[in-house]
């Protein structure tokens, strides 16, 4: 089978990891460029698919003053790129009891008093590697609009870059985490049909039927499966 490595003639980029220069093939992600440079990553590598937040990275291109933030597994390295990974931040987190904490203006401010200090500078939004509208959800928290805060923060990968860069010392990701849980817990109440299902299982409603199926082998179950498949034509 073809095992075409990047031939020597292909372009390479100079990258600087913690200021040290390495030549890497063009077209690799920052993560693979770091690995090509000889690092076996311990901190700063996770799902390698852009959903876990382990590999947040600050980078800058030579002669450009702007500091950028991205996930190392999702952003391609560029020529003359200066790189540092930020795999950990000592961010403030409030302890709370999910069973007894009500989601109110009072409780959010009591647990996260720094919320009041937000200056609206938008640095958090600019620092988010997922381009979430962090300031917008912080504003929603300030206004007590917890549903909006939940929706705007739903894709957060908890990398911590918003808190890292916030000049007022807010911890947006941890505030939103708590609020999403409290909102989610509240939404779970009072679904009668669901409670009925749990009760039926506790009462053993399907126990005998399952025992009957357990006595059958694959061939014996096949016609029953066909029947289930055809008995309820529902949308996929």
């Amino acid at each position: 089978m073809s095992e075409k490595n990047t031939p020597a003639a292909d372009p390479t980029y100079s990258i600087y990891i913690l200021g040290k220069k390495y030549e890497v093939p063009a077209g690799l992600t920052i993560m693979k460029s770091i690995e090509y440079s000889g690092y076996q990553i311990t901190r700063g590598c996770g799902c390698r698919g852009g959903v876990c937040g382990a590999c947040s990275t600050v980078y800058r291109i030579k002669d450009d003053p702007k500091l950028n933030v991205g996930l190392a597994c999702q952003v391609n390295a560029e020529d003359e790129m200066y790189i540092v990974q930020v795999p950990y931040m000592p961010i403030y987190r409030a302890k709370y009891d999910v069973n007894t904490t009500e989601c109110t203006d009072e409780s959010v401010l009591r647990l996260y008093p720094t919320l009041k200090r937000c200056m609206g500078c938008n640095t958090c939004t600019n620092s988010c590697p997922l381009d979430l509208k962090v300031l917008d959800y912080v504003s929603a928290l300030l206004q007590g609009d917890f549903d909006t805060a939940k929706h705007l923060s739903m894709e957060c990968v908890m990398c911590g870059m918003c808190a890292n860069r916030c000049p007022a010392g807010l911890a947006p990701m941890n505030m939103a985490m708590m609020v999403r849980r409290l909102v989610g817990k509240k939404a779970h109440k009072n679904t009668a049909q669901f409670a009925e299902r749990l009760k039926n299982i506790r009462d053993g409603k399907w126990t005998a039927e399952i025992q009957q199926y357990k006595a059958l082998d694959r061939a014996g179950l096949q016609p029953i499966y066909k029947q289930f498949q055809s008995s309820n034509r529902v949308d996929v």
Partner: protein
Amino acid sequence: MAYPASMMPSIQKANATRQARFGTMHPELTVDEKAKLLQDFHPDFNLKVKRALRVGANTGDLAPDEMANIVEAPSRLNPKDVDLDKPDYCTDILVIGSGGAGLSAAITARAAGANVLIATKLRCGDSNTIMAEGGIAAATDPADSPAIHYVDTIIGGRGTNVKELVEVLVTEAPFILDWLSALGVNFDRRADGSLFNHRPGGHSRRRSHSIMDLTGLEIMRVLSDEVRNQEIPLLEFCPALELILDDKGQCCGAVLQNLDNGKLLTVKAKVVIMATGGMGRLHPMGFPTSNHYGATADGIVMGYRAGAKLIYIESVQFHPTGTAWPEQLLGLLISEALRAQGAQVLNCEGEMFAANLETRDALAAAIIRECNSRGKGVATPAGIVGTWLDTPLIDMIHGPGTFERRFAGIYSRFMGYGINPKEEPILVYPTQHYQNGGMTINTSGETTLPNLYAAGEVSGGVHGQNRLGANSLLDIFVFGRLSGESAAKKIQSVTTGRPTLEHLNLYNETLRQAGVETETRSPMILPDYRFEKALTKITHMEAR
């Protein structure tokens, strides 16, 4: 970054043949053709890349070479370096791993009053669980029942599942949704507040519950947050290297290594719960993987060395349409729904070579054949070869806007790399997705080694030799919670003897007697992608 120039000629061929292909279908394989295709090209049938284990409780059973290589290897730990008389930590229950299974076990055991310590290789929550997009199966719909879920799961597993485990799986499922919701997981809900559900492949009812396409992320965030609220002791970047046994042959702890300073740490525990996940990063048979960086089968190695029995360790699930380009998305799953909506699979000449809706195993085999012996794959600068999934057909068939509406996530991910799947095809190749087998467990999560429990992908049997979608996200919580619960009861009656690592020496002796010669030391802990290994290669051989 759009497609590189080297791939453009093939894209132009796909574009040129699209109008002629529109409305046509590649003939489906006959039963005989399919059997031969699987036999010749499907990795699970490829006996050249599997071998019979020469040592341990499963001697004679097949395992993929990459798995056998680390199972049939001496420990990376030298028993002489460890002082077992002075444990660094003493606890009732040691949980190894912090994915969905590990954290649900820890939270449950703690709630039952046990002292729990979590040790994990990377960050708390780092796992395959966090990457789960689809959903979690449970018979919550009035038209559904645990009995129907039972039948679907057994048929999906080709009848090879351990029936008792499946019974527990389907019966506990709705309680898992209750438990997660009460912890504050924001499952998608209808306007009336009831749980929204949808129907994944192989299931007879609407049964999968999701949180947009971020199901695993949302659940892992919540569980990690709860572990911190409960202040359960947590050692991050401290993978287990080996289990500790006592002179009665019971599991009684583990040796960890702090990855930051290399120090070995011993944990004395009455019970150990192994929840280290799967094996994708071994790249079985040379495949890319949809798995997390930490999926290196450490728990299989540790458990097997200590004497735990495995089941179906030869069985690996491949998904036919993993992303092959751009490299950043390599291995990322492309849902079957795209093929169901009319996307055809094409070779480098823009020709169809298989029907869109062949089963997962047959299509994976057909793509492998096209890229290898037929030499009609599309090469990428990263070294990987793939075939086209002709996505522009979807809007041609169903009208403009369909693709963006139905596949918003895929659309935005590819657009982020300058690839517009409405106008140009996307490149796919089969990807390793799931370890079907693992350590044998009973309905309490106990392995065959006394006082060692296992939960999640590191365990085996519940899915048989083929897992149904949405059942693994369920499995980890059902058996995570059950193992935490039963371990918390078990500690009342456990008396631990003198700790020893003698089983490592014995295992080495067994390897010598079996004539195994290897430079490998295991468990692997971290995959090695340094230097040229950072460049993607697919190295698997064909079966025939």
